[in-house]
């Protein structure tokens, strides 16, 4: 049966309204005080220390009702790498949890046990930035081509294309200007002209 829902009724009842998320997180994790910001309604950014990250994810999902891993954005912050996990809530709130890891050991835990659909996001971190995702089941790489060197991580700020990856794009050969071998489309000389 197709349902035509009434937009005035919220999609789902939620234990915590969007504006209450920072306070609810701080009540559970006092260490987060001063490490959160809510730049606009329904947006929360949290800098999570590595030791409480998984507890924070559990709390956000099991207690506060965040039920989707929208994506993971990896980035090179020069002094460290960061993974920004975006969790979605039925009420439209988006919780962005930033996990910083040292450049020399960019290790993060997998969340695929809870969010199996997140495997591709984690493979992207491995492929483009060189993260090591602990516990991620072995699989094909994503999204770089199979012959891309494993030690080249293009989204790192210090990445320079090597001889293997800087394949020149074929250039247009200088075509003889005098007589084109194929008449241009639409020109009177084209074979189909007048048909």
């Amino acid at each position, binding site marked *: 049966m197709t*349902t035509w829902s009434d937009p005035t009724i919220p*999609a789902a009842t939620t234990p915590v309204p969007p504006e209450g998320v920072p306070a609810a997180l701080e009540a559970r994790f006092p260490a987060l005080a001063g490490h959160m910001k809510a730049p606009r309604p329904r947006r929360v950014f949290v800098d999570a220390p590595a030791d409480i990250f998984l507890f924070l994810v559990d709390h956000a999902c099991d207690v506060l009702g965040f039920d989707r891993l929208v994506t993971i954005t990896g980035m090179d912050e020069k002094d460290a790498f960061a993974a920004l996990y975006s969790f979605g809530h039925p009420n*439209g709130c988006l919780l962005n949890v930033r996990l910083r890891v040292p450049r020399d050991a960019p290790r993060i835990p997998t969340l695929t046990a809870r969010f199996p659909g997140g495997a591709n996001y984690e493979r992207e971190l491995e492929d483009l930035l060189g993260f090591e995702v602990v516990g991620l089941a072995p699989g094909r790489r994503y999204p770089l081509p199979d012959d891309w060197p494993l030690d080249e991580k293009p989204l790192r700020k210090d990445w320079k294309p090597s001889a293997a990856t800087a394949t020149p794009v074929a250039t247009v050969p200088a075509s003889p200007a005098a007589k*084109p071998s194929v008449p*241009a489309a639409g020109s009177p000389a084209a074979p189909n002209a007048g048909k």
Partner: protein
Amino acid sequence: MSRVTIPVGPQHPSLKEPESFNITLEGERIMMAEVKLGYNHRGLEKAAEDRTFIQDIHLIERVCGICSHAHSSAYVMCVEEIAGVQVPARANHIRTLIGELERLHSHLLWLGVAGHEIGFDTLLMYSWRDREPVMDMLAMLTGNRVNYGINTIGGVRRDVTQAQLDQVLAVVDVVEERVKYYVDLVQTDATLAQRLSGVGFLSHEDAVRLGAVGPTGRASKIDRDIRRDDPYFAYADLQFKVITDDHEDVYGRTLVRVGELLQSLSIIRQVAKSMPDGPVKAKAPRKVPAGEATVRYEAPRGENLHYVRSTGGDKPDRVKVRAPTLANSAAVAKMMEHNNLADVPVIIAAIDPCFSCTDRAIRVEDRTRGSAEVLTWKELRRRSIDWWREQGGVDFTAHNQALLKKLSAR
């Protein structure tokens, strides 16, 4: 019965875009499917870091050909949020108008593709014919059928006139009549219902667990729509319904999309009739202050997320695109299980996949010369002919010249 694993793709008959599936069969029945993406990756996110915020609009718009407005909108909204730019109401209405016309043409396109995949090519011909007036409206309003180039940071690049809005309203009436016919067709046609029912089943629990978005999720009872849940543009002031369905199969996905067509038409009417007066663009700084923003946009295929981070310069430090097909790719593997091999094309088509945005694309650059190049139509044609000749392909030059001689002799 012993199991057989067959590779499908990267080039295969069900889609015009490359992706591959490893499908494990027991007889005709699919036991397991594995999806491999990445064939369209062209390094867009990296390229965006080398360009200014303004240049990136142009680049990001080309993430996808069908839902280009979804991507450029999400990107400019990120930048506007970081820079603290207030977009005028008229600009937001115009953006909404283009966004809904885009959804209209995308869903009509999908309806035709779905019809084609089940051998119902009449539906393809009809729905693509009815899609044309929508494309014409987009061309009239923006100057182009796809890649509209309407967004800029702080507003839109073109205003609309009352005469244009009247024309849109007239076309909406025509398209609505056709869409009502499709709704009726999908709801009452026995062949369509029997062909699609039970195909590509995705339970509500699996859809939630695997993170399905858009019509794919809504057909599995996920009552989620960013336009309502996290409103942007003018959606907070508009009346529309979020359409969900409990069939949880390809039939349900069809019902959801035709229902959304009617909602889009209603939104376009509301926007065109309530278009506020005023400027269409606010002044935006060239250098964007340090900060970051995440924006979600309900693209025709589902939730589209963009993340932009600035360090205070005129170029972004990081641009991230997560297109809806990537979110649905885990679900499509699940949908294939326990279906017949012959149903693979329509199951894949039912998520309305778009791999160019999923893998994120574009860079026309010559690294040896370090310059970007623009090819004219003639040069492009020349290059393709030369390429084929070098690859030992069929050379029609002699044939064409012979034909030309024959024609001129007449």
